[in-house]
């Protein structure tokens, strides 16, 4: 398992490198934690005033959010280089991967982990999960646990797939920062709320274009069964983890086609 050894060595290097700056790592992790908490605090304050949003109370909202943070913590420990891919191209560091006898995506995924973001998001995700899971009436049994794990894996693959697609776009456009900010960061922010509150356009985006709804909204509905689920096909709940696999495969194919362009243009 050569790949596993690369992964272990890379992760070890990422962590060791961060440990060179202990104080800064701690401060930055806390800053990420606080930054991400801002949305939670705003929802908490808003629901002090308004009680519920489309029937979802505070705890249910926190559960919905916790899935976003937990999946992202895994995503940045794997896909950090793909998240920052346009910078990698600009600085010419991608050339280096081309002269190594390994798959390009494999190297990108194994290479770097964003330790700070992973710790910040992961801590918040676990905290929100612990705060909310007990209060929203989930009954944990082998089936629900299995579904939950599949949903997390699917969510990670979906987001990884989006990063791969955005990275592949760097082979066509000089600046992809704005595409990334709309198709990833904005959509992720919107997914913090039950998608049923949005108009048709935004719902379509979140279900069929950048299917974040399958990362947290439909999986959450598996456990919560809120009345707003009536507006959607029941099957969405069960296919949610598969959507991630599908997006990832699609992203992989798109990457394969696009990377050829790099050979002709360079940076």
């Amino acid at each position, binding site marked *: 398992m050569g790949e596993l050894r690369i992964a272990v060595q890379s992760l070890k290097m990422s962590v060791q490198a961060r440990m060179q*700056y202990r*104080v*800064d790592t701690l*401060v*930055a992790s*806390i*800053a*990420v934690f*606080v*930054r991400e*908490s*801002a*949305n939670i*605090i*705003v929802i908490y*304050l*808003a629901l*002090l*005033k*308004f009680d519920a*949003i*489309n029937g979802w109370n505070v705890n249910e909202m926190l559960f919905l959010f916790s899935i976003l943070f937990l999946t992202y913590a895994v995503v940045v420990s794997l896909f950090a280089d793909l998240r920052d891919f346009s910078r990698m191209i600009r600085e010419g560091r991608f050339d280096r991967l081309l002269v190594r006898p390994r798959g390009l995506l494999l190297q990108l995924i194994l290479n770097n982990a964003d330790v700070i973001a992973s710790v910040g998001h992961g801590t918040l995700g676990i905290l929100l999960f612990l705060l909310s899971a007990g209060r929203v009436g989930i009954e944990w049994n082998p089936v629900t646990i299995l579904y939950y794990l599949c949903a997390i894996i699917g969510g990670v693959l979906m987001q990884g797939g989006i990063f791969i697609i955005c990275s592949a776009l760097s082979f066509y*456009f*000089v*600046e*992809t*920062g*704005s*595409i990334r*900010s*709309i198709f990833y960061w*904005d959509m992720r*922010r*919107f997914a913090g*709320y039950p998608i049923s*509150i*949005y*108009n048709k*356009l*935004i719902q379509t985006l979140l279900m069929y274009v950048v299917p974040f709804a399958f990362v947290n909204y439909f999986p959450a509905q598996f456990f919560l069964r809120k009345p707003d689920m009536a507006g959607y096909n029941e099957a969405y709940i069960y296919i949610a983890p598969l959507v991630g696999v599908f997006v990832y495969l699609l992203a992989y194919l798109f990457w394969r086609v696009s990377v050829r362009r790099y050979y002709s243009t360079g940076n």
Partner: protein
Amino acid sequence: MRAYLEIAVRKFQDKMAYRLDFFMGIVNTAITIVVYLCIYRALYAGASEVDGITYRMVATNFVITLGLSNAFGYNEMFLQDKVHDGSITNEFLKPVSFTLRLLAENVGEGAFKLIFHFLPALLFTLLHTRLCPPKSALHLLAMLGSVALGYLILWLLSFIIQTWSFWLFSVWGIITIKNVLVSILAGTLLPMWFMPAALRRVIACTPFESIYFTPVRIYLGELDGAQLLSGVAVQTAWIAVLGLAAWIFWRRGVKKLVVQGG
């Protein structure tokens, strides 16, 4: 003055070289507006008003606030990067003041975003949502003045923290936390009206209320006559306080740099 105007205009042009960013910036702003209006509508759940505040006032507050916070988004790590790579010392050799140059660049970038991202997105919003008109032309004018003051407060807050990079290894964490405070306490996401009473009393003692909320209230006519003047006076007072603090930090930082040679 001409030199700084020139700097602002050049930054404005630089931004225009990125075509895709330009069009996506508009889409980005428009989508954000749509989404937040959906969220507020869901929170209102059909009620015509909450605590005397109508949905339309909330929408107006959000749109104005978003426009301003968009205009403010620029690279806040600029000074730190200059300190780290040592190029800050070159800046002192140039005939223009570094701080004013920075302000001019940021204003240029902000003006670009206001005109080319926010304005088209605003027109798009007006197609499907009715916002409150300004109370009068005079209020609109007063609001524009107040916006400039609000911008300065935000800029000074950011600049003060940026100057700490003369002493700290990285100010990224503190800047992030500052931005969190601004986004919550200045009412960017949840309008000031709906904050818990205790929290609002605290906010009233900080510069955060003067950033977006004072201009919004002037626009809506919530602040009128003497209240309007006192609102602007509070803004000015904060600029004086923050400006003084910024000046002290900057001078000390530069002195430290000169003494220790970076």
